[in-house]
């Protein structure tokens, strides 16, 4: 039956090529616009660590009081030195790490080799198991290494290739900022986007992954400069340069992440943060009631507006276009099906059920959907390639063509055309055979 309906559909579509082309183009463009903008949206709104993001939390403390940083009574999105260290010391989460951005130089051994500028982070050893950071060789460092500020380093895949030609370099020495570090781990290529563990500095997106991770306490001890942003409350300026000034100030420059595995632990941690703030209040440091936040990664990313408004907006507008295309197709299909009322009357009079008529026209709508989907596939491909040229520089390469996108494009086109065909097909199946036969 299906083949017969398909044959009928093709014959009917060929009869009015203009109208058919119109519908195919309409579906094709609508779907392509929606899918192209979705591919960009997907790239920037993705969950960087989906299997764990709801268990990773960012504690925020109101260390500046009402009116700071803005009037919306939200605490700053990073911590100052004193509070970050207090949280680390109390160690109330399963895993936790204070994090600050560093940008030291690596000096390769060998004559005449240029120093390599690095981007990376000073973290605690718990950072690696907490974020499931993938290792190619070796592993992170131990709590003991943290405690005695050991000169150890975890290096990224690219740096390992540049320095050691990509071999297992665990145990080798790398010279960073005029200090020797023992490599304890080499990462697989790892560059989660958005950079959920450092949103305040990156805004969410970076061009390359981190090159190096050093122990927090060792970086502090050697005075390794903070390469991330520093935010100070109104009217406060650092009175001393470098790390020393930062450590003494109440300016924020340290990001913090904690793993809390169930609701009870989360409640407990919330309570702990409030108790901590209350204690600071009693000590006279805070002159205001506790005003803390404990957001998990997805909520925090949303709070930080990591997804650019443009990506969401353009997807919305494209969805509007798809809707208009659908309505357009409904109208044209309706016209086309009802024009064949005579044919429907004859088929019904000869014994075809309403369901059969309905099925016949849905097949026709589906045929348009598949053709439109094929066109949409082509246009989406072109669209994703083209959109890369008009996106901001930092988003370049984020939108990708993959199997999911292609499959979804065809599915959306098919679903859209069937949806558009449903009402006209039902209307067509309601045609009164007797009336049609009489008037003709």
């Amino acid at each position, binding site marked *: 039956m299906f083949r017969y309906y398909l044959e009928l559909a093709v014959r009917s579509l060929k009869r009015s090529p203009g*109208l058919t082309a*119109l519908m195919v183009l*309409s579906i094709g*463009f*609508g779907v392509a*616009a929606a899918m192209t*903008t979705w591919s960009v949206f997907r790239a920037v709104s993705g969950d960087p660590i989906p299997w764990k993001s709801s268990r990773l939390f960012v504690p925020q403390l109101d260390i500046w009081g009402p009116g700071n940083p803005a009037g919306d009574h939200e605490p700053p999105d990073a911590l100052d030195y004193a509070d970050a260290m207090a949280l680390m010391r109390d160690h109330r989460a399963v895993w936790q790490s204070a994090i600050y951005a560093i940008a030291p*130089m690596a000096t390769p051994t060998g004559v005449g080799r*240029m*120093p390599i*500028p690095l981007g990376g982070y000073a973290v605690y050893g718990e950072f690696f198991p907490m974020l499931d950071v993938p290792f190619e060789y070796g592993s992170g460092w131990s709590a003991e290494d943290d405690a005695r500020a050991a000169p150890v380093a975890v290096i990224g895949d690219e740096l390992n290739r540049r320095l050691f030609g990509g071999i297992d370099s665990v145990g080798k020495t790398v010279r960073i*900022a*005029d200090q020797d570090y023992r490599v304890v781990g080499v990462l697989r290529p790892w560059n989660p986007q958005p950079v959920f563990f450092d949103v305040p500095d990156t805004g969410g997106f970076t061009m390359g992954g981190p090159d190096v991770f050093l122990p927090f306490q060792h970086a502090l001890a050697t005075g390794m400069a903070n390469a991330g942003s520093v935010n100070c409350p109104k*009217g406060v*300026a*650092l*009175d001393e*340069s*470098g790390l020393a000034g930062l450590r003494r100030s109440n300016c924020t420059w340290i990001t913090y992440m904690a793993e809390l595995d169930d609701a009870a632990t989360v409640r407990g941690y919330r309570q702990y943060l409030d108790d901590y703030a209350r204690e600071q209040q009693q000590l006279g440091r805070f002159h205001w009631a506790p005003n803390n936040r404990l957001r998990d990664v997805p909520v925090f990313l949303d709070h930080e507006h990591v997804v*650019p*408004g*443009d990506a969401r*907006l*353009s997807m919305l*507008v*494209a969805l*509007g*276009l798809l*809707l*208009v*295309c659908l*309505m*357009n197709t*409904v*109208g*044209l299909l*309706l*016209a*086309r099906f009802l*024009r064949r009322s005579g044919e429907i009357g004859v088929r019904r009079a000869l014994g075809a059920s309403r369901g059969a008529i309905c099925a016949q026209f849905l097949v026709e709508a589906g045929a348009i959907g598949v053709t439109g989907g094929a066109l949409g596939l082509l246009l989406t491909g072109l669209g994703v390639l083209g*959109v890369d*040229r*008009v*996106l*901001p*520089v930092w*988003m370049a390469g984020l939108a990708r063509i993959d199997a999911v996108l292609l499959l979804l494009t065809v599915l959306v086109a098919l679903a859209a055309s069937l949806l558009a065909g449903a*009402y006209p097909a039902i*209307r067509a199946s309601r045609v009164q055979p007797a009336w049609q036969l009489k008037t*003709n």
Partner: protein
Amino acid sequence: MKLHPILSALRHHKTGALLIALQIALTLAIVCNAVFIIGQRIEKVGRSTGLVEEGLIRISQNWLNAPTGDDPAAVEQLDAMQRADLAALRKLPDVQEVAAAASMPIQGMIWSGTLGLSPQADNGGIKVAYYYGDERQRSTFGLRLLAGRDFRPDEITHQSSQGKLTAPVVIVSQVVAERLFPHGDALGKTVYQDGKAAAIVGIVGPLQTPTLGRLSALGSDWAYNSVLEPVRLDGATASYALRAKPGREQAAMREARKALIAVDPMRLMPDSWGIQSFTTIRDKVYRGDRGMALLLGLICLILLAVTATGIAGLTSFWVGQRRKQIGIRRALGARKADILRYFQLENLFIAGVGAMLGLLLAVAFNLWLMSRYEMAHLPVGYVLLGVAAMLVLGQAAVMVPARRASKVPPVVATRSV
């Protein structure tokens, strides 16, 4: 012609008419808002930086073997390295002028602070961006000196970029002068930059601040609050402004790279951000905005085309359906023009209903956008223009099928099929 027969005929194809009206409504709502956003982006991209952009080049580089720390010896060494670079660049044949310049408009690297009329922290001062550079910064940027004078070479100091920066004299942009001294007597006055006194020795024309980030988004008003500071910043990073001789921009960039590598090869100065013409910087900075405008424009075009062809398609169907009625009307004495007008009026009615609905949708969409994004009120003019455009679009789309309808001969009335 009366509307009554049109309305009663429409009752027979309610769904089609409704679909067209809804399509027009949605199209109007989307296109109005999209065009408004496009307009805002074009305005943003078109804002003047105040520079003479043609021929301006920015060099920004890291020394790989720079002394670390900010003790006096390190600062002196860094400054000597910087002066050596500047001297080498100045000798190049295609370079007209060279200056130490830590930042440039819109490019991102910013130092900022508060400029007020008293040393207290809460002095009602205004937020400003500091442009650190030497005595040639103003002329290399191509800024016009409106009053006062340039910095004298002996006023230029050099300080560590990591420390607290101060200067006893400043040149302010016109906007800053007017904001702090509304009576136009800014020249020679003392202002306090983050509590430290400085005298205004010159006033220059408009100069945009170096950042377009959230700070200077819509609604903030310090986009042109710029202050020139007579300070060469010494750090592992040093940045210069170069003015090429007319038409020699590319040559000057090539020469500059060669000259700087000859002075000291141990530096990081990649093509992507090391040596760039200001035109390139501008292109990069505004790529996202231009892209968004382009994308929205494209979607609008497709939307209008889809709606127009939809109207044309559905009307042709109606014409086909009503051939007989048209024939009868013609046989009863209706002229071709009457038939034409019938379809035009019918479309005007449907499009009118759709446009009214679209007007409400457009405003609702705009209000929703305002609640979620930094978006201004949609001006009434846009919506009215949109309504007019929709009606014109409808009329244009209906033209071809309506013409065909008017050509139906009266003899059709006498035929049975």
